[in-house]
């Protein structure tokens, strides 16, 4: 497996995925359509890390625009056999201290599960999205891969905070990334609907974490949250709509890949995009166009926005009772290569675990195959729960 798309520095300390732009470094976003493109500026998060003494060793492959499971359909880096995420593997091997990934469809959280490390998707608006190849602006967020909660907290302290270049970046406030919150006596909910969708390996991990937490005085209660599936559908609709819109700029006119043969402007568009995108992206474009069409807008897009509000309210109510929610982050730990025509369904089936966090903007930390979710800005609770569970691993 190739771990880097672009190697930048031999003595770099961290890796970032190929959706995060660095000045003068070729960035494909995993897609042929961006062949030859390199950014004129550097992402805010990378600027902050470099200033803090964390140079980037290189960029890691992602699936085309981060739309697949863990990067298996990255242009020029298609995976065979057992699937892994490149950034997660680099962290697992200890080649970098931590890595950054863009979490839109849960791919980095899944990758962390497959490699047995951790990934935090922070609260929406806390980390600047300036300088990422953006698809689903309303729910994507840069997060941190690391082997432990302590390192994640350290990285978050550097990258989080207001950025005037991002209109969705929350106004100046200080965020707390503590790993030492007292967990004893806290109540945590385990979502049964999601647990039932996971295989035995994943279930075992969940059970172990539950047992570890209970040992530390955490009270774990099984609950039902039927709207997991609704959250998945709603997020898929919003994500497809926004992705379709955001990647419509890749048209062969200005930069990146352009088809060799075309008679007129319509053919230039059609041929460049036909040759430049893979089948998963094309499916997403069609799906996104469809849900935004006059015919479907009310029933699909608008309803999804309502679902987003409703589910956020339900989760808020849940977080009144529970400090955090636990659920598996994926159905299995052994994905193998498959045909791209099955990708849309495969990703959808996995998104049921991860979509709630993207849809509603709440933070989600996955430790192996077990994810913790909390109310907005509840990262310290997640980090502390993860840390307690890490100690039991030793």
């Amino acid at each position, binding site marked *: 497996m190739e771990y880097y798309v672009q190697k930048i520095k031999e003595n770099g300390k961290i890796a970032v995925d190929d959706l995060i*732009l660095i000045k003068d470094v070729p*960035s494909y*976003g995993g897609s042929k359509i*961006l062949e030859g*493109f390199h*950014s*004129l*500026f550097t*992402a805010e998060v990378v600027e902050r890390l470099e200033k803090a003494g964390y140079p980037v060793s290189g960029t890691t492959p992602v699936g085309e625009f981060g739309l697949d499971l863990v990067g298996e359909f990255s242009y020029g880096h298609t995976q065979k056999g057992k699937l892994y995420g490149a950034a997660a593997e680099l962290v697992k091997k200890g080649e970098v201290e931590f890595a950054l990934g863009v979490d839109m469809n849960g791919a980095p959280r899944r990758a962390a599960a497959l490699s047995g490390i951790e990934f935090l998707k922070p609260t929406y608006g806390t980390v600047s*999205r*300036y*300088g*990422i*190849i*953006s698809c689903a*602006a*309303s729910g994507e967020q840069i997060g941190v891969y690391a082997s432990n909660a302590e390192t994640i907290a350290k990285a978050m302290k550097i990258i989080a905070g207001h950025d*005037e*270049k*991002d*209109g*969705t970046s929350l106004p100046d406030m200080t965020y707390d990334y503590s790993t030492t919150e007292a967990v004893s006596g806290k109540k945590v909910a385990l979502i049964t609907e999601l647990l039932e969708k996971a295989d035995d390996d994943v279930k075992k991990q969940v059970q172990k974490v539950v047992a570890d937490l209970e040992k530390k005085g955490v009270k774990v209660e099984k609950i039902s949250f039927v709207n997991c599936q609704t959250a998945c559908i709603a997020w898929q609709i919003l994500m497809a*709509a*926004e992705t379709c*819109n955001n990647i*419509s*700029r890749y*048209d062969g*006119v*200005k*930069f990146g890949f352009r088809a060799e043969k075309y008679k007129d*402007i319509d053919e230039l*568009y059609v041929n460049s995009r036909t040759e430049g995108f893979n089948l998963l992206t094309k499916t997403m474009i069609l799906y996104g*166009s469809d849900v*935004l*069409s*006059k015919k479907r*807008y009310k029933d699909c*897009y608008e309803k999804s*926005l309502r679902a987003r509000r409703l589910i956020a309210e339900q989760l808020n109510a849940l977080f009144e009772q529970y400090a955090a929610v636990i659920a598996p982050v994926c159905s299995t730990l052994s994905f193998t290569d498959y045909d791209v025509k099955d990708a849309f369904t495969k990703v959808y089936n996995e998104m049921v675990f991860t979509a709630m966090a993207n849809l509603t903007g709440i933070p989600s930390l996955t430790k192996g195959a077990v994810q913790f979710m909390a109310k907005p800005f509840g990262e310290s609770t997640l980090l502390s729960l993860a840390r307690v569970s890490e100690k039991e691993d030793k």
Partner: protein
Amino acid sequence: MKYEIVIGLETHVELNTKSKIFCSCGGHSSAKEANDCVCPACCGMPGMLPVMNKRVVELAATAGLMLNCNINKYSTFDKKNYYYPDLPCAYQITQLNHPICTNGHITIKTKDTEREIRIKQIHMEEDAGKLVHEGNFSYVDFNRTSVPLIEIVTQPDFRSADEVLTYLRKLKSMFQSSGISECETGAMRCDINISVRPEGSSEYGVRTEVKNMSSFELIEKAINYEAQRHIDAIEYETEELIQETRRFDEATGKTFAMRNKETEADYRYFPDPNLMPIVIDDAWLEKIKANKPIILDERENLYREVGIGEKEIAMLLSNHVLMKLLDDTVQAGADLKTASSWILTDLIGLLKRKNIALTADTIAPAKLARIIELVAKSVITRATGKKLLDVVVEKDVDPDEYRIANKLDMQQDSGLLENAVRKVLQENETMVAEYKAGKEKVFQALIGATMKELKGKAEPSAVVEALRKALLR
């Protein structure tokens, strides 16, 4: 049968801001080369996010106040999707569902009618770039991309081309004088929605839209052509009218239907998740209101109150440079009515003679105000004032320095005047005799001779008086 023409307008106006609507690129109108005024954001490169230019909000709200609109506390942006090479992101950011201003009105007066035009809404949006075709190649120029626009949408309240033009002239003058827009060529563009119906009917006829018109002259032609086409279709059944989008062909003077492909597009609008809703709180709105320029109707009343003539008022209202100069001259201390007369009679006359166009740099308002003051205080005569104006326009000299250096001050010493009169009467005995014999005409010649003797440095009225006195003796 008699028909009534019904027209609604959508007018795009480019706002006069330092930078573009969502990025910090500025100065596109003075860009010398294509793509001089672009950045990764307005070129549609990945990674850049739109950041709202607050000045755009203020100018749009000011336009709304001038058109008596509600300024909405909460407004949002939507993305409008379509592919065109001059649109780098393949979507335009605009306001569909929650525009910044709604429900306004403006009164327009034509020769024959006075009518209130209802404003449905004003929304903010970004402009597209430009395509340049040369031989077998087409080039894109993104200088204009993301330049801020407002679109002003009226109800179908116009009943003639004349009313439309009156409205557009009024908008133009309003926006120019308030600095909202420079309204240069192409910076104000209209889509014209037009239908006809039998006079007295309350139902609307089939509506067509003539897109992207900027010249007033062509707008008039297009409306008249299109209205007649509708009437012919109804009256003589020349064709079946359908609701469609059309373009006006300058060469033939006719409108033609655009391809269906272009008009039946589904723009797949949706709210832009990258831009938070614009919230105009009371404090901000008060600040915008405080900076609101005098609106034209108020100005018109003010001019009338101080006794400026109707013809002069019309001249002022139609020319924002004149209005601005008048404003600034008054600001510099001149009396409004006196200043208007100096500007509209003396300055305009002078410029006409010299064949110079009036611009913001023609004369410094403070200098003009000083000339007016010198005359008002009888330091110089009005005639000298006019000459001084000429020199100031020509060479931009300081009025006081020039007046002192060239000894232009009025002759205050009545002894000098009397001496001059005496001398003139002695030298022109024949004329004096003629005058005394009843030939009044020679009096003018005597005035002229006296003024010449005094080198013009006397008030004509004083000369007349002194002459009359002397002749009576």
